[in-house]
């Protein structure tokens, strides 16, 4: 058994080596381009793919901070919100500053505002190390959200800002349909993926890696650690700002409730579940954390699950038998066609939390780890490191 499994893994690895990564990416992109033309994928599906793409962009941005430079940022939503509100405040006729600029005029501003926020936050806290950064970024994310809620003279508070402009393109006109939005986010995700992976392989990426591995050694080697950490932080923040602009424009309405801590946790979780520092990991992580919960709500999923009513009946018979014997009533399963929505609704976060723990304990390098990160995560077992305390 084990022998075959190893052989299969070996063969798969060989295949991986035979097909160069560029070709694999091209095949992947071709599949993505074809998606909107498959009749099965209705608007709701395309919308789901759009959100997966949006979180890929966000994940790639956070990946620079967490995966490349090893800085734990728990307030990434702050930059996402900065981008979204830049577009909302400058672009909507309903905001306090009624400039009504076009989408394209504001997009660079949104990215810039994100980056500036990153630098402003990074300057005081980056000289500190690790865990302090986690709590300060978390606090910063909350501060930004509370500002959005309570400075209603500028942000309309919880009432939010609507009528946010859509991007217009020559020939196509305004981006309106779900398919157009899907292609738009696809192009952006590819651009961001190329930029971040280029950065990783460039000198700056090696500096980040050195800092991540051992900051003291990196500093001793002459790397200006604070400067490089700040660069990682602001790059990630700029991409977060970009994501925010796209989100605000797509939904057309923003309010502070959309920028809760949950967004930060979702993004960091998808980076980690996918595999820190890895671009394919971000794609897989987004699909699992953002795609699947939405797919569970779709009609087709309900129709598909509806075929399993026999299974439900069988289980319920079994449960009824137990119920009649035991003092506790275990209840019964709902109809099979609502299983998906039931999980997506109430149980999603329970599964999500357990999944995070399980992945960290069983596969701490994530599902599709970057090769370098994997080596780092493959830690020796406890017994090999700490001497057994049996001397007592």
């Amino acid at each position: 058994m084990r022998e075959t499994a190893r052989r299969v893994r070996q063969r798969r690895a060989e295949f991986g080596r035979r097909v160069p990564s560029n070709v694999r990416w091209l095949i992947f992109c071709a599949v993505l381009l074809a998606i909107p033309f498959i009749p099965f994928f209705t608007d709701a599906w395309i919308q789901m793919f759009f959100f997966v793409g949006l979180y890929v962009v966000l994940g790639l941005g956070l990946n620079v901070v967490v995966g490349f430079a090893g800085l734990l940022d728990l307030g990434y939503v702050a930059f996402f919100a900065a981008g979204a509100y830049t577009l909302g405040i400058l672009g909507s006729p309903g905001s306090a500053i009624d400039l009504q600029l076009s989408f394209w005029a504001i997009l660079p501003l949104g990215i810039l505002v994100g980056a500036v926020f990153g630098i402003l936050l990074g300057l005081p806290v980056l000289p500190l190390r690790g865990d302090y950064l986690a709590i300060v970024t978390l606090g910063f994310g909350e501060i930004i959200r509370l500002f959005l809620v309570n400075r209603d003279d500028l942000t309309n508070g919880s009432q939010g800002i609507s009528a946010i402009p859509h991007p217009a393109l020559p020939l196509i006109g305004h981006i309106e349909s779900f398919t157009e939005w899907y292609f738009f986010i696809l192009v952006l995700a590819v651009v961001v993926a190329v930029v971040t992976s280029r950065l990783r392989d460039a000198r700056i990426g090696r500096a980040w890696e050195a800092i991540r591995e051992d900051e003291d050694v990196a500093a001793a080697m002459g790397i200006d650690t604070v400067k490089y950490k700040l660069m990682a932080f602001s790059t990630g923040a700029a991409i977060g700002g970009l994501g925010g602009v796209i989100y605000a424009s797509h939904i057309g309405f923003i309010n502070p409730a959309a920028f809760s801590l949950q967004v930060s946790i979702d993004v960091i979780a998808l980076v980690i579940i996918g595999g820190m520092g890895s671009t394919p990991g971000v794609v897989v992580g987004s699909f699992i954390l953002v795609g699947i919960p939405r797919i569970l709500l779709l009609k087709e999923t309900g129709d598909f699950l509806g075929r399993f009513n026999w299974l439900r009946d069988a289980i319920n018979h079994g449960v009824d038998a137990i119920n009649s014997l035991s003092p506790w009533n275990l209840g019964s399963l709902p109809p099979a066609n609502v299983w998906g929505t039931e999980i997506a609704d109430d149980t999603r976060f329970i599964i999500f939390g357990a999944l995070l723990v399980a992945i960290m304990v069983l596969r701490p390098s994530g599902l599709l780890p970057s090769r370098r990160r994997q080596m780092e995560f493959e830690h020796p077992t406890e017994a090999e490191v700490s001497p057994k305390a049996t001397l007592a």
Partner: protein
Amino acid sequence: MRDRGYGSKLFLALGALAGIALLAAACGDDDSGGSGGVKYGTAGFTSITIDSGASVKIGISSPTSGDLKAIGQPIVDAAQLAAEGKDIKGHKIEWVVKDDLCSADGGAAAATQILQEKVVASIGPVCSGAVVAAEPQYEKAGVTQISPSSTAHKSTYPDRGAVFQTFLRTTYSDDIQGPVQATFAKDKLGAKTAYIVYDTDAYGSGLRDAFRTAFEKGGGKIVGSPEGYEKKATDFKSIVTNIQNAKPDLVYFAGFFAEATPFIKQLRAANKDVKFFAGDGVKNDEFTKGAGADAEGAYLSLPSPAYTGAGYLTFGTAYEAKTKAKRDASPFVAESYDAATIIINALNKVATDSGGKLTIDLKKLNDEIRKTTLDGASGKIKFDARGENAGGATPVTLFKITGGKYVETPR
């Protein structure tokens, strides 16, 4: 790989974006239509054909999971109750229920799923945040939506200026509840000064503004600064101390029962005399149950006419028989029932039958719904040009908690 340096790459990217920006053309507004001084946007009205034997689909967008299931599910139940035993010229009615999670993002996603099912009209969304995010989609599809519960100003006064022709509501705007509450507080409760405590969400901050404006306009004085709290807060001690210091005649609470319960307990521990007045968010049996004796004497209001008419009694009996829940345990159920009734009645008037095939012109359906006058479960309903319910003469009912029960009190 050659190193081109970090800065140059970033500028390259920014430069490319700026280039795209220059290429892109600006686009003007395309609003049109309107009536009664209200300007409408362009709705994509079409007509929908229903094959013989097929059913007519109506959407419902409501939070049916999580914390808000307690509010969302009864609204769905009530709407579905209105269709029982009814059809559209021989065609069955089919409900397309989607969970909108009460959020902007969820409202937009639910709208997409509802609209692609080719519904002819829709009920909801329940929450104002979801309404504002979903309105453009319904307008584009030309599908009329009736919200039974969105009380926010923004739902009918959109930021873009042009009103959504496809949005209507059977409930009443905060703009109506606030002033009635302010008048009642001043005239009936004799409050010259009021202290405001509010939930920082859309509901609480909207009501805060409506009450403050009206109370000050009527000559009342807001003492201290309005104090906000985040949902799920439990520590109101510091606010209570401020109230003790400001010595108001009345505390106005714009929020929900979950926070009102610990608030009123902490308030009463320090102050037994100050009057407590809150909006519909607090009127829930959980409040009287949780706060017990401390809730005694609290005043509450609902943005609905008194539920006493014949329509309400019929509805209430049927609702209790169907759901085994009390008819007044959850708000906006009668409004939801009425919304469904209005849609079904209008459909029966507008749908044209040719050999078992039904054709429904969505523009005509919208016109018919807008013309409706109904003496329904939630009182008289009539829509103005903006989509507001303008039917009720006194669309706010007041209650005082006496002996652990909500007792209606004259305005």
